């Protein structure tokens, strides 16, 4: 397999020196803090252009590696007695090398080499859609996530999607985590708000704002598009649905005449609505379950401004969750509980613009994550380190992904302004 064409030493030296002419063949991730992330070189993979491009980008977007992406047409390193030329790729500054080889049919063999130890770290043989187009991309993304788990022991976010409301047509759209596969989900002519994923990634729930001002909660199956109006929500005004982590329950806010209260619902049998919060003139909304399903963070106006509270999932033990200075701290909204249970993300108004914050529950420490433009409505990725949110820092409101570990962020382009994003759990696992 490792019949690498001869590679001129002069070219190797030129690559190492990175002259201007080599910029299209070697990309060193200089936007990352050097020395912090292991550098990973993606080797040319004949016959696997799409798979290689998708995996390389997924690993880059994981923010766990500094990616050195050789051009697919780059000549291979000089052959050695070892499976790959460890010394050569080490000379590019890489600690890891990713080798993809096409097997029979749709089979791909993936080998990750530890260049320092001069041994193979991981071998994965997977069946993927080699064309990497349309729905087939997910099989490639799953390969990327398997690689990330093999190296780091942590879940990846490649095989995930984001739903959001497109401000132009007010429909729910979805996009793959890498920005591909942008399609509308909800039908045209139905005005929507606040989409959320079911934990299994099979359905979304959203509020449907009718012309008369009622807001039923709709459950829509992603595969078939089948829609179900949640009983008891037709003819009433409801918003901000949230699935329980086991997928059997839902908490949502109902706009009523005394105020706005949180209700729970058995979403498996679509029955059994129960009032969770009282307070005649208080508003309680935007619930977010803890990953163990036992607690719910939410927004309440009970003390005046909008701030983040927490309660048991049955509505008992309500208390302030994120501390604030009364009369000083801006409104805090849109909490989302991280998948590891350790952190709440939310946005807070600072000098007239919302900014993303995280609150470390154990350390009780609040950390601002953004400062430029308006940044709002954060939602955690399943790896518990990436957040998607809406930012207008480059003009209109767009999806942005922030890695809270490295501070690196990237934009996901959408056709119009985007609102209210929600990140799925892994798709198809």
């Amino acid at each position, binding site marked *: 397999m490792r019949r690498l064409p001869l590679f001129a030493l002069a070219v190797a030296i030129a690559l190492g020196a990175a002259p201007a002419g080599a910029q299209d063949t070697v990309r060193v991730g200089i936007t990352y803090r050097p020395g912090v992330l292991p550098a990973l070189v993606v080797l040319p993979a004949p016959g696997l252009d799409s798979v290689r491009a998708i995996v390389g980008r997924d690993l880059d977007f994981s923010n766990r590696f500094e990616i050195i992406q050789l051009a697919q047409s780059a000549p291979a390193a000089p052959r050695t007695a070892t499976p790959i030329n460890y010394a050569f790729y080490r000379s590019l500054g890489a600690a890891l090398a990713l080798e993809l080889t096409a097997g029979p049919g749709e089979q791909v063999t993936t080998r990750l080499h530890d260049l320092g130890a001069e041994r193979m770290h991981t071998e994965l043989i997977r069946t993927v859609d080699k064309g990497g187009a349309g729905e087939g991309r997910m099989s490639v993304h799953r390969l990327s996530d398997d690689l990330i788990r093999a190296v780091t022991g942590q879940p990846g976010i490649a095989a995930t999607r984001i739903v959001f409301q497109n401000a132009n047509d007010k429909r729910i759209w979805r996009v793959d985590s890498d920005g591909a596969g942008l399609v509308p989900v909800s039908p045209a002519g139905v005005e929507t708000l606040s989409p959320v994923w079911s934990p299994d990634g099979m359905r979304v729930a959203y509020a449907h704002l009718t012309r008369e001002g009622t807001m039923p909660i709709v459950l829509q199956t992603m595969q078939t598009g*089948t829609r179900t109006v949640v009983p008891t929500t037709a003819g009433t005004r409801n918003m901000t649905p949230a699935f329980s982590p086991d997928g059997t329950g839902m908490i949502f806010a109902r706009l009523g005449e005394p105020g706005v209260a949180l209700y729970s619902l058995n979403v498996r049998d679509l029955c059994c609505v129960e009032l969770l919060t009282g307070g005649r003139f208080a508003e309680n909304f935007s619930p977010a379950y803890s990953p163990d399903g036992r607690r719910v963070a939410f927004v309440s106006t009970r003390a005046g401004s909008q701030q983040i509270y927490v309660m048991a999932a049955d509505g008992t033990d309500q208390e302030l969750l994120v501390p604030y200075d009364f009369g000083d701290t801006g409104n805090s909204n849109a909490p989302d509980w991280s998948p590891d249970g350790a952190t709440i993300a939310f946005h807070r108004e600072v000098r007239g613009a919302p900014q993303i914050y995280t609150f470390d529950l154990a350390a009780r420490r609040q950390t601002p994550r953004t400062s430029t433009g308006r940044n709002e409505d954060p939602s955690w990725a399943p790896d518990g380190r990436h957040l998607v949110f809406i930012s207008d820092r480059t003009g209109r409101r767009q999806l942005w992904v922030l890695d809270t570990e490295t501070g690196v962020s990237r934009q996901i382009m959408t056709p119009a302004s985007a609102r209210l994003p929600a990140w799925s759990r892994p798709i198809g696992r």
Partner: protein
Amino acid sequence: MRRRPGLVPLALIALSALGCGKKAEPVVDVPTSNPPAPAPVPPPPAPATNPTDPNAEAARVTAAVRAELGNVIHFDYDQDAIKPEDRPILDRKAAILQANASLRIRISGHADDRGSDEYNLVLGNKRALAAKRYLESKGIAASRIDVASFGEERPADPGQNETSWAMNRRDEFEIIAGGERLVQPR
């Protein structure tokens, strides 16, 4: 997405309008993979005033009263208190409701787009309720007033400046029943 964008939403809107907030309501499934049944199209609303009505004066009065009922009121940023200058507008609506016993209205609250998207629905609700409570305090039965909130979803003015925002922080008033023939209050 293999959808038929024209028919399915209509069907959902029509079907969801059938339910009325009771527990026993049926679950509505709208499969989009099969050809949808022809969507029931509601009949066009009856004309507000009959153009052939010989009583032109009654039609003129009805139109004038309807216009007055439609006057919007405005709010300060992130506030739901009725402003003193809007009280005469609401007093007038209360008088019209008193003079026209079968009249029912919907008050819909709106917000500018500076606060949180989801909170703005809450704020619109508070603004609609503030006007409803005011009318109730003037003796209008609560059952004659529906409320709705559109948050920041229906701006009156799409601009991004103080004037536009002030225009968007509002309550709108809409007749939902009994508006065919209206009289001026005494």
